[in-house]
């Protein structure tokens, strides 16, 4: 007959395995959610501007018009393909390390230039994109990241000045983010 001790032991192992599975899922999948990004206060300016119906910056326009339905940060900032996912995870761990050890300075910024391919993944080949002759004329510099999409289409997020402590907009941008969806 199986002793009570063994049953408790097996239950404990089951609970432990479930906890590790859940935690790993949260770490590697749950962190794709926009709400996960907004848990770090340095990300609040990006989130607050994105959900601001008055903002005309690129991220806000994409959000307001529902062009990206979910995981907005992840969809735009993670390079596509397997290598993109791996790089994103490595970047995420680096962000965790820098944030929790407070080895960063405000306002934060991108380490690498934004990859135009992340925009082109959705926009390239669409009738609106093809109809704009400038896209064809600048195809090489767009593909090589020499000219970022934002140089014509405007900034995606609030400028470094607005995100810097002391700026008039800083307090408003740093309030807790309320994501409606």
């Amino acid at each position, binding site marked *: 007959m199986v002793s009570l001790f063994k049953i408790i032991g097996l239950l404990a192992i089951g609970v432990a395995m479930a*906890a*590790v599975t859940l*935690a790993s899922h949260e770490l590697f999948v749950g962190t794709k959610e926009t709400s996960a990004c907004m848990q770090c206060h340095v990300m609040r300016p990006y989130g607050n501007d994105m959900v601001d119906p008055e903002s005309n910056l690129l991220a806000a326009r994409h959000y307001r018009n529902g062009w990206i339905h979910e995981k907005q940060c992840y969809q735009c900032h993670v390079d596509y393909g397997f290598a993109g996912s791996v790089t994103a995870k490595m970047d995420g761990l680096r962000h*965790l390390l820098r*944030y929790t050890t407070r080895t960063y300075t405000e306002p934060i910024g991108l380490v690498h230039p934004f990859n135009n391919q992340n925009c082109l993944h959705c926009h390239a080949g669409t009738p609106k994109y093809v109809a704009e002759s400038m896209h064809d004329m600048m195809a090489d510099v767009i593909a090589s990241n020499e000219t970022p999409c934002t140089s014509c289409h405007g900034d995606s997020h609030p400028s470094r000045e607005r995100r810097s402590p002391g700026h008039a907009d800083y307090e408003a941008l740093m309030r807790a983010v309320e994501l409606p969806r």
Partner: protein
Amino acid sequence: MNHHTAAVGVIIAMLITIAYVLDPGPYAAFAFAFAALPLLAFVIVFYYLREMIRELRHRDVL
């Protein structure tokens, strides 16, 4: 690594893991990614696998 050290390591890793599951924030995520997971991996590799190999060798399987 003896039984006691391995057990303490697993218990610490599990406490961090459960804390992260219950309240997933950046600090709990950091503790889970940089402490709990490496600790669990270390214990599994250096204790349980070693014990398993020793047992299999003892039974002349390996």
